[in-house]
Protein backbone atom coordinates (compact mmCIF):
# COMPACT_ATOMS: atom_id res chain seq x y z
CA UNK A 1 0.00 0.00 0.00
CA UNK A 2 1.65 3.15 -1.16
CA UNK A 3 1.23 6.70 0.06
CA UNK A 4 -0.09 7.85 -3.30
CA UNK A 5 -2.28 4.81 -3.94
CA UNK A 6 -5.71 6.27 -4.64
CA UNK A 7 -7.39 3.02 -3.66
CA UNK A 8 -5.72 3.08 -0.25
CA UNK A 9 -6.89 6.68 0.25
CA UNK A 10 -10.45 5.79 -0.70
CA UNK A 11 -10.36 2.80 1.61
CA UNK A 12 -9.37 5.12 4.44
CA UNK A 13 -12.49 7.16 3.81
CA UNK A 14 -14.89 4.29 4.31
CA UNK A 15 -17.14 4.57 7.34
CA UNK A 16 -16.77 2.53 10.48
CA UNK A 17 -19.33 2.49 13.32
CA UNK A 18 -17.76 3.88 16.49
CA UNK A 19 -19.12 4.30 20.03
CA UNK A 20 -17.73 7.13 22.17
CA UNK A 21 -16.67 6.04 25.66
CA UNK A 22 -16.08 9.54 27.06
CA UNK A 23 -17.68 12.93 26.84
CA UNK A 24 -15.80 15.02 24.33
CA UNK A 25 -16.32 18.79 24.53
CA UNK A 26 -16.72 20.63 21.27
CA UNK A 27 -16.61 17.64 18.96
CA UNK A 28 -20.31 17.77 18.12
CA UNK A 29 -19.36 18.73 14.59
CA UNK A 30 -18.96 15.04 13.89
CA UNK A 31 -22.59 14.48 14.77
CA UNK A 32 -23.82 17.44 12.80
CA UNK A 33 -24.31 19.99 15.63
CA UNK A 34 -21.21 22.18 15.73
CA UNK A 35 -20.29 23.70 19.05
CA UNK A 36 -22.06 21.05 21.11
CA UNK A 37 -20.43 18.30 23.15
CA UNK A 38 -20.42 14.63 22.34
CA UNK A 39 -21.79 12.46 25.13
CA UNK A 40 -20.43 9.10 26.13
CA UNK A 41 -22.27 6.25 24.43
CA UNK A 42 -23.00 8.09 21.20
CA UNK A 43 -22.71 5.97 18.07
CA UNK A 44 -21.35 7.69 14.98
CA UNK A 45 -20.01 6.40 11.69
CA UNK A 46 -16.48 7.73 11.40
CA UNK A 47 -14.04 7.33 8.53
CA UNK A 48 -11.58 4.51 8.97
CA UNK A 49 -8.55 6.77 9.41
CA UNK A 50 -10.20 8.78 12.18
CA UNK A 51 -11.76 5.84 14.00
CA UNK A 52 -8.49 3.97 13.96
CA UNK A 53 -6.65 6.92 15.49
CA UNK A 54 -9.25 7.59 18.17
CA UNK A 55 -9.36 3.98 19.26
CA UNK A 56 -5.62 3.81 19.63
CA UNK A 57 -5.73 4.71 23.35
CA UNK A 58 -6.51 1.12 24.16
CA UNK A 59 -3.15 0.07 22.89
CA UNK A 60 -1.30 2.67 24.95
CA UNK A 61 -3.00 1.51 28.13
CA UNK A 62 -4.98 4.71 28.75
CA UNK A 63 -8.75 4.65 28.56
CA UNK A 64 -9.80 4.70 24.97
CA UNK A 65 -11.90 7.40 23.37
CA UNK A 66 -14.03 5.23 21.10
CA UNK A 67 -14.70 1.55 20.62
CA UNK A 68 -14.88 0.25 17.11
CA UNK A 69 -17.49 -2.03 15.66
CA UNK A 70 -17.40 -4.24 12.64
CA UNK A 71 -18.93 -2.35 9.69
CA UNK A 72 -22.14 -3.58 8.15
CA UNK A 73 -20.28 -4.70 5.01
CA UNK A 74 -18.62 -7.42 7.09
CA UNK A 75 -21.57 -8.27 9.32
CA UNK A 76 -22.71 -11.75 10.25
CA UNK A 77 -25.43 -11.58 7.61
CA UNK A 78 -22.92 -10.95 4.83
CA UNK A 79 -20.66 -13.73 6.07
CA UNK A 80 -23.57 -16.15 5.94
CA UNK A 81 -24.29 -15.07 2.39
CA UNK A 82 -20.66 -15.82 1.51
CA UNK A 83 -20.93 -19.24 3.06
CA UNK A 84 -24.02 -19.96 0.96
CA UNK A 85 -22.68 -18.79 -2.40
CA UNK A 86 -19.86 -16.27 -2.83
CA UNK A 87 -20.75 -15.63 -6.44
CA UNK A 88 -24.17 -14.08 -5.89
CA UNK A 89 -23.10 -11.36 -3.44
CA UNK A 90 -22.88 -7.84 -4.81
CA UNK A 91 -19.66 -6.66 -3.18
CA UNK A 92 -19.76 -3.27 -4.79
CA UNK A 93 -22.99 -2.29 -3.06
CA UNK A 94 -21.53 -3.43 0.28
CA UNK A 95 -18.33 -1.41 -0.08
CA UNK A 96 -16.57 -0.23 -3.26
CA UNK A 97 -13.21 -1.26 -1.78
CA UNK A 98 -14.47 -4.35 -0.06
CA UNK A 99 -11.27 -6.37 0.17
CA UNK A 100 -9.06 -3.43 1.10
CA UNK A 101 -11.55 -2.56 3.82
CA UNK A 102 -11.72 -6.09 5.15
CA UNK A 103 -7.95 -6.24 5.12
CA UNK A 104 -7.82 -3.19 7.39
CA UNK A 105 -10.61 -4.49 9.60
CA UNK A 106 -8.85 -7.82 10.05
CA UNK A 107 -5.81 -5.93 11.27
CA UNK A 108 -7.95 -4.34 13.98
CA UNK A 109 -10.05 -7.33 15.00
CA UNK A 110 -9.01 -10.90 15.47
CA UNK A 111 -11.47 -12.86 13.40
CA UNK A 112 -10.06 -16.22 12.41
CA UNK A 113 -13.25 -17.41 10.84
CA UNK A 114 -13.69 -14.28 8.79
CA UNK A 115 -10.24 -14.79 7.25
CA UNK A 116 -11.28 -18.28 6.19
CA UNK A 117 -14.56 -17.14 4.69
CA UNK A 118 -13.03 -14.18 2.87
CA UNK A 119 -10.16 -16.22 1.41
CA UNK A 120 -12.60 -18.78 0.16
CA UNK A 121 -14.84 -16.09 -1.30
CA UNK A 122 -11.96 -14.36 -3.03
CA UNK A 123 -10.74 -17.61 -4.55
CA UNK A 124 -14.18 -18.69 -5.80
CA UNK A 125 -14.88 -15.31 -7.29
CA UNK A 126 -11.42 -15.10 -8.86
CA UNK A 127 -12.09 -18.31 -10.77
CA UNK A 128 -15.36 -16.82 -11.99
CA UNK A 129 -13.61 -13.58 -12.96
CA UNK A 130 -11.05 -15.52 -14.99
CA UNK A 131 -13.83 -17.22 -16.91
CA UNK A 132 -15.56 -13.94 -17.67
CA UNK A 133 -12.30 -12.26 -18.63
CA UNK A 134 -11.46 -14.93 -21.18
CA UNK A 135 -14.91 -14.99 -22.64
CA UNK A 136 -15.29 -12.02 -24.99
CA UNK A 137 -19.06 -11.81 -24.55
CA UNK A 138 -18.78 -11.84 -20.77
CA UNK A 139 -19.29 -8.14 -20.27
CA UNK A 140 -22.54 -8.05 -22.21
CA UNK A 141 -24.10 -11.44 -21.68
CA UNK A 142 -25.41 -13.22 -18.65
CA UNK A 143 -22.37 -12.34 -16.56
CA UNK A 144 -23.21 -8.63 -16.47
CA UNK A 145 -24.78 -8.80 -13.00
CA UNK A 146 -21.80 -10.55 -11.52
CA UNK A 147 -19.34 -8.17 -13.13
CA UNK A 148 -21.22 -5.15 -11.86
CA UNK A 149 -20.84 -6.49 -8.33
CA UNK A 150 -17.06 -6.68 -8.39
CA UNK A 151 -15.14 -4.56 -5.92
CA UNK A 152 -12.08 -2.49 -6.92
CA UNK A 153 -9.52 -5.23 -6.28
CA UNK A 154 -11.53 -7.66 -8.36
CA UNK A 155 -11.99 -5.14 -11.12
CA UNK A 156 -8.25 -4.78 -11.41
CA UNK A 157 -7.93 -8.55 -11.56
CA UNK A 158 -10.54 -8.70 -14.28
CA UNK A 159 -8.80 -6.02 -16.25
CA UNK A 160 -5.38 -7.65 -16.03
CA UNK A 161 -6.75 -11.07 -16.98
CA UNK A 162 -8.75 -9.61 -19.85
CA UNK A 163 -5.88 -7.54 -21.19
CA UNK A 164 -3.34 -10.35 -21.13
CA UNK A 165 -5.75 -12.72 -22.87
CA UNK A 166 -6.51 -10.06 -25.45
CA UNK A 167 -2.86 -9.27 -26.09
CA UNK A 168 -2.07 -12.92 -26.59
CA UNK A 169 -4.95 -13.22 -29.04
CA UNK A 170 -3.69 -10.20 -30.94
CA UNK A 171 -0.23 -11.71 -31.11
CA UNK A 172 -1.65 -15.00 -32.36
CA UNK A 173 -3.51 -13.06 -35.04
CA UNK A 174 -6.95 -14.18 -33.91
CA UNK A 175 -8.22 -10.66 -33.37
CA UNK A 176 -7.32 -7.36 -34.93
CA UNK A 177 -5.50 -4.73 -33.00
CA UNK A 178 -7.64 -1.75 -32.24
Amino acid at each position, binding site marked *: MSYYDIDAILTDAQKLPCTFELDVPGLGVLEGNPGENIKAGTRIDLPLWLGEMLSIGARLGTSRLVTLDIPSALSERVMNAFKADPRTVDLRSLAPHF*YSLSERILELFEEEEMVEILSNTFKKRAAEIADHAHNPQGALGQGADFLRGLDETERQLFRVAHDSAKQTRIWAGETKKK
Partner: protein
Amino acid sequence: MAFPLPRGITPPEISFLAEMEMVTVLPRQRLDGLELLGGSLPTLLPPRRTTLPLWLALLLKRQRRANILPPPWLHPESLELILEIETQNDEYQHAFSPPPPLPGQPTLAHRDRDRDRAVAAPVPRYTPDGDKYYPTPPFLPQNVARDHIPPGEPPALPFHWLEVGTMLLDAASDDLVEPDQTRRLLKELREVRTAKIRSGVEVLDAAAVGGGGVALTGVGAMEVGEGRGFIAGVVDGLRRIGASKEQARREELAEEMANGGYDASQDYEDDMEF
Protein backbone atom coordinates in the same frame (compact mmCIF):
# COMPACT_ATOMS: atom_id res chain seq x y z
CA MET B 1 0.26 1.70 -11.16
CA ALA B 2 0.52 4.80 -13.21
CA PHE B 3 3.17 3.20 -15.36
CA PRO B 4 1.62 2.85 -18.81
CA LEU B 5 3.13 -0.53 -19.66
CA PRO B 6 1.69 -3.69 -18.17
CA ARG B 7 3.76 -5.57 -15.66
CA GLY B 8 5.64 -8.54 -17.02
CA ILE B 9 6.50 -8.92 -20.65
CA THR B 10 4.11 -8.67 -23.54
CA PRO B 11 3.45 -11.42 -26.11
CA PRO B 12 5.52 -9.71 -28.84
CA GLU B 13 8.45 -9.52 -26.43
CA ILE B 14 8.10 -13.20 -25.59
CA SER B 15 8.14 -14.17 -29.23
CA PHE B 16 11.14 -11.90 -29.75
CA LEU B 17 12.97 -13.90 -27.10
CA ALA B 18 11.86 -17.12 -28.77
CA GLU B 19 13.65 -16.04 -31.93
CA MET B 20 16.90 -16.85 -30.17
CA GLU B 21 16.09 -20.57 -30.35
CA MET B 22 18.28 -22.55 -32.71
CA VAL B 23 16.68 -24.34 -35.63
CA THR B 24 18.04 -26.46 -38.43
CA VAL B 25 18.02 -25.09 -41.97
CA LEU B 26 18.83 -26.54 -45.32
CA PRO B 27 20.41 -23.68 -47.27
CA ARG B 28 19.71 -23.29 -50.96
CA GLN B 29 22.42 -20.71 -51.56
CA ARG B 30 25.98 -20.20 -50.47
CA LEU B 31 26.39 -17.59 -47.78
CA ASP B 32 29.57 -16.60 -45.99
CA GLY B 33 29.71 -16.93 -42.26
CA LEU B 34 28.75 -13.97 -40.12
CA GLU B 35 30.53 -12.65 -37.08
CA LEU B 36 27.78 -11.55 -34.70
CA LEU B 37 27.88 -10.37 -31.12
CA GLY B 38 26.07 -13.46 -30.01
CA GLY B 39 28.64 -15.72 -31.63
CA SER B 40 29.76 -16.45 -35.14
CA LEU B 41 27.56 -18.22 -37.65
CA PRO B 42 28.98 -20.91 -39.91
CA THR B 43 29.26 -20.59 -43.66
CA LEU B 44 26.18 -21.89 -45.42
CA LEU B 45 26.91 -24.49 -48.08
CA PRO B 46 23.85 -25.65 -50.00
CA PRO B 47 23.53 -29.35 -49.37
CA ARG B 48 24.70 -29.20 -45.78
CA ARG B 49 22.38 -28.75 -42.83
CA THR B 50 23.23 -25.90 -40.50
CA THR B 51 21.92 -24.74 -37.15
CA LEU B 52 20.93 -21.09 -37.09
CA PRO B 53 18.97 -18.83 -34.77
CA LEU B 54 15.29 -18.74 -35.62
CA TRP B 55 15.29 -15.07 -36.60
CA LEU B 56 17.92 -15.61 -39.27
CA ALA B 57 16.31 -18.82 -40.43
CA LEU B 58 12.99 -17.02 -40.89
CA LEU B 59 14.72 -14.19 -42.77
CA LEU B 60 16.44 -16.60 -45.15
CA LYS B 61 13.22 -18.54 -45.57
CA ARG B 62 11.33 -15.40 -46.57
CA GLN B 63 14.04 -14.62 -49.10
CA ARG B 64 13.76 -18.20 -50.39
CA ARG B 65 17.37 -18.84 -49.60
CA ALA B 66 16.84 -21.70 -47.19
CA ASN B 67 14.37 -24.31 -46.07
CA ILE B 68 13.66 -24.90 -42.41
CA LEU B 69 13.64 -28.44 -41.11
CA PRO B 70 10.90 -28.63 -38.47
CA PRO B 71 11.86 -29.78 -34.97
CA PRO B 72 10.77 -33.32 -34.10
CA TRP B 73 8.01 -32.22 -31.76
CA LEU B 74 6.36 -30.06 -34.43
CA HIS B 75 4.99 -33.04 -36.26
CA PRO B 76 1.36 -34.20 -36.28
CA GLU B 77 2.28 -37.57 -34.80
CA SER B 78 4.28 -36.10 -31.92
CA LEU B 79 1.62 -33.49 -31.24
CA GLU B 80 -1.11 -36.17 -31.23
CA LEU B 81 0.90 -38.08 -28.67
CA ILE B 82 1.44 -35.04 -26.46
CA LEU B 83 -2.21 -34.14 -26.73
CA GLU B 84 -3.08 -37.65 -25.64
CA ILE B 85 -0.82 -37.34 -22.61
CA GLU B 86 -2.43 -34.02 -21.76
CA THR B 87 -6.00 -35.21 -22.03
CA GLN B 88 -6.13 -38.97 -21.45
CA ASN B 89 -3.39 -39.66 -18.95
CA ASP B 90 -4.70 -39.55 -15.38
CA GLU B 91 -1.31 -38.62 -14.03
CA TYR B 92 -1.37 -35.39 -16.03
CA GLN B 93 -4.99 -34.50 -15.39
CA HIS B 94 -3.98 -31.34 -13.54
CA ALA B 95 -0.42 -30.95 -14.80
CA PHE B 96 1.23 -30.21 -18.12
CA SER B 97 2.91 -32.89 -20.16
CA PRO B 98 6.54 -33.30 -19.11
CA PRO B 99 9.08 -30.90 -20.62
CA PRO B 100 12.05 -32.24 -22.57
CA PRO B 101 14.60 -33.76 -20.19
CA LEU B 102 17.65 -31.76 -19.24
CA PRO B 103 21.00 -33.26 -20.13
CA GLY B 104 21.84 -35.84 -17.52
CA GLN B 105 18.24 -36.14 -16.42
CA PRO B 106 16.57 -39.49 -17.05
CA THR B 107 13.66 -39.40 -19.44
CA LEU B 108 10.30 -40.60 -18.22
CA ALA B 109 10.55 -43.93 -19.95
CA HIS B 110 13.95 -44.56 -18.47
CA ARG B 111 12.82 -43.63 -15.03
CA ASP B 112 10.14 -46.26 -15.14
CA ARG B 113 12.16 -49.03 -16.70
CA ASP B 114 15.59 -49.00 -15.18
CA ARG B 115 15.68 -46.80 -12.16
CA ASP B 116 19.09 -47.98 -11.07
CA ARG B 117 21.07 -47.47 -14.18
CA ALA B 118 23.22 -44.39 -13.99
CA VAL B 119 22.39 -41.69 -16.49
CA ALA B 120 25.13 -40.42 -18.72
CA ALA B 121 26.72 -37.39 -17.14
CA PRO B 122 25.93 -34.11 -18.90
CA VAL B 123 28.59 -32.79 -21.21
CA PRO B 124 29.96 -29.48 -19.95
CA ARG B 125 30.57 -26.59 -22.30
CA TYR B 126 33.16 -23.86 -21.97
CA THR B 127 32.86 -20.11 -22.16
CA PRO B 128 35.41 -18.12 -24.19
CA ASP B 129 37.20 -17.46 -20.89
CA GLY B 130 37.52 -21.15 -20.22
CA ASP B 131 34.93 -21.43 -17.46
CA LYS B 132 32.93 -24.61 -17.41
CA TYR B 133 29.13 -24.41 -17.57
CA TYR B 134 26.14 -26.57 -18.25
CA PRO B 135 23.60 -25.08 -20.60
CA THR B 136 19.96 -24.96 -19.47
CA PRO B 137 16.74 -24.63 -21.45
CA PRO B 138 16.91 -21.36 -23.38
CA PHE B 139 20.38 -22.39 -24.58
CA LEU B 140 19.69 -26.03 -25.27
CA PRO B 141 19.03 -27.02 -28.86
CA GLN B 142 15.45 -28.17 -28.33
CA ASN B 143 14.17 -27.13 -31.70
CA VAL B 144 16.76 -28.56 -34.06
CA ALA B 145 15.84 -31.36 -36.41
CA ARG B 146 17.19 -34.75 -35.45
CA ASP B 147 17.63 -37.76 -37.67
CA HIS B 148 17.71 -40.24 -34.90
CA ILE B 149 15.52 -40.05 -31.82
CA PRO B 150 16.60 -42.50 -29.14
CA PRO B 151 13.88 -44.99 -28.29
CA GLY B 152 12.05 -44.35 -25.06
CA GLU B 153 12.23 -40.60 -25.41
CA PRO B 154 8.69 -39.36 -25.83
CA PRO B 155 8.15 -36.11 -27.74
CA ALA B 156 7.93 -33.15 -25.41
CA LEU B 157 7.03 -29.52 -25.82
CA PRO B 158 9.97 -27.13 -25.31
CA PHE B 159 9.64 -23.89 -23.35
CA HIS B 160 8.97 -21.78 -26.45
CA TRP B 161 6.69 -24.29 -28.15
CA LEU B 162 3.80 -21.97 -28.89
CA GLU B 163 5.95 -19.15 -30.28
CA VAL B 164 8.24 -21.32 -32.39
CA GLY B 165 5.30 -23.37 -33.63
CA THR B 166 3.25 -20.33 -34.58
CA MET B 167 6.14 -18.55 -36.26
CA LEU B 168 7.10 -21.60 -38.27
CA LEU B 169 3.50 -22.10 -39.32
CA ASP B 170 3.31 -18.49 -40.42
CA ALA B 171 6.54 -18.27 -42.35
CA ALA B 172 7.46 -21.78 -43.34
CA SER B 173 4.26 -23.76 -43.52
CA ASP B 174 5.40 -25.43 -46.77
CA ASP B 175 8.35 -26.97 -44.93
CA LEU B 176 6.17 -28.61 -42.29
CA VAL B 177 4.48 -31.95 -42.49
CA GLU B 178 0.72 -31.43 -42.91
CA PRO B 179 0.61 -27.78 -41.77
CA ASP B 180 -3.16 -27.67 -41.40
CA GLN B 181 -3.19 -30.67 -39.15
CA THR B 182 -0.32 -29.22 -37.15
CA ARG B 183 -2.08 -25.91 -36.77
CA ARG B 184 -5.22 -27.61 -35.52
CA LEU B 185 -3.27 -29.68 -33.01
CA LEU B 186 -1.35 -26.68 -31.70
CA LYS B 187 -4.61 -24.87 -31.17
CA GLU B 188 -6.12 -27.81 -29.34
CA LEU B 189 -3.06 -28.19 -27.14
CA ARG B 190 -3.23 -24.54 -26.28
CA GLU B 191 -6.88 -24.76 -25.29
CA VAL B 192 -6.31 -27.83 -23.14
CA ARG B 193 -3.42 -26.21 -21.34
CA THR B 194 -5.19 -22.88 -20.84
CA ALA B 195 -8.03 -24.77 -19.18
CA LYS B 196 -5.52 -26.37 -16.83
CA ILE B 197 -4.09 -22.99 -15.82
CA ARG B 198 -7.58 -21.72 -15.15
CA SER B 199 -8.52 -24.66 -12.98
CA GLY B 200 -5.34 -24.02 -11.00
CA VAL B 201 -6.88 -20.85 -9.53
CA GLU B 202 -8.95 -23.01 -7.19
CA VAL B 203 -5.86 -24.27 -5.41
CA LEU B 204 -3.92 -21.01 -5.43
CA ASP B 205 -4.67 -20.22 -1.79
CA ALA B 206 -2.49 -23.13 -0.82
CA ALA B 207 0.27 -21.44 -2.77
CA ALA B 208 -0.30 -18.19 -0.91
CA VAL B 209 -0.05 -19.62 2.60
CA GLY B 210 2.77 -21.95 1.70
CA GLY B 211 2.97 -25.67 1.48
CA GLY B 212 0.72 -26.13 -1.53
CA GLY B 213 0.73 -24.82 -5.03
CA VAL B 214 0.07 -25.39 -8.66
CA ALA B 215 2.32 -27.68 -10.67
CA LEU B 216 3.67 -25.58 -13.52
CA THR B 217 6.35 -28.00 -14.67
CA GLY B 218 6.46 -27.97 -18.43
CA VAL B 219 4.68 -24.64 -18.79
CA GLY B 220 5.46 -22.60 -21.90
CA ALA B 221 6.81 -19.05 -22.04
CA MET B 222 3.68 -17.63 -23.62
CA GLU B 223 1.49 -19.35 -21.05
CA VAL B 224 3.49 -17.86 -18.21
CA GLY B 225 3.26 -14.45 -19.85
CA GLU B 226 -0.48 -14.73 -20.25
CA GLY B 227 -1.19 -15.98 -16.75
CA ARG B 228 1.29 -13.84 -14.88
CA GLY B 229 -0.83 -10.80 -14.13
CA PHE B 230 -3.89 -12.66 -13.03
CA ILE B 231 -2.21 -15.38 -10.99
CA ALA B 232 0.08 -12.91 -9.23
CA GLY B 233 -2.96 -10.73 -8.48
CA VAL B 234 -4.91 -13.60 -6.95
CA VAL B 235 -2.01 -14.79 -4.83
CA ASP B 236 -1.37 -11.25 -3.64
CA GLY B 237 -5.03 -10.74 -2.77
CA LEU B 238 -5.11 -13.94 -0.76
CA ARG B 239 -1.93 -12.95 0.98
CA ARG B 240 -3.38 -9.62 2.01
CA ILE B 241 -6.57 -11.18 3.34
CA GLY B 242 -4.60 -13.78 5.26
CA ALA B 243 -2.00 -11.29 6.51
CA SER B 244 -3.49 -10.83 9.97
CA LYS B 245 -3.75 -14.57 10.48
CA GLU B 246 -0.18 -15.03 9.34
CA GLN B 247 0.90 -12.29 11.73
CA ALA B 248 -0.86 -14.03 14.61
CA ARG B 249 0.76 -17.31 13.68
CA ARG B 250 4.20 -15.73 13.67
CA GLU B 251 3.64 -14.11 17.05
CA GLU B 252 2.47 -17.39 18.48
CA LEU B 253 5.54 -19.07 17.13
CA ALA B 254 7.82 -16.40 18.54
CA GLU B 255 6.13 -16.70 21.92
CA GLU B 256 6.52 -20.44 21.89
CA MET B 257 10.16 -20.06 21.18
CA ALA B 258 10.63 -17.41 23.86
CA ASN B 259 9.13 -19.86 26.36
CA GLY B 260 12.00 -22.22 25.84
CA GLY B 261 10.88 -24.06 22.73
CA TYR B 262 13.37 -25.64 20.39
CA ASP B 263 15.93 -23.06 19.37
CA ALA B 264 17.30 -24.82 16.34
CA SER B 265 15.55 -22.46 13.99
CA GLN B 266 15.90 -19.39 16.18
CA ASP B 267 18.19 -17.58 13.82
CA TYR B 268 16.00 -18.28 10.88
CA GLU B 269 12.92 -17.05 12.70
CA ASP B 270 14.69 -13.87 13.73
CA ASP B 271 15.22 -13.09 10.07
CA MET B 272 11.53 -13.50 9.43
CA GLU B 273 10.45 -11.00 12.07
CA PHE B 274 9.52 -7.56 10.92
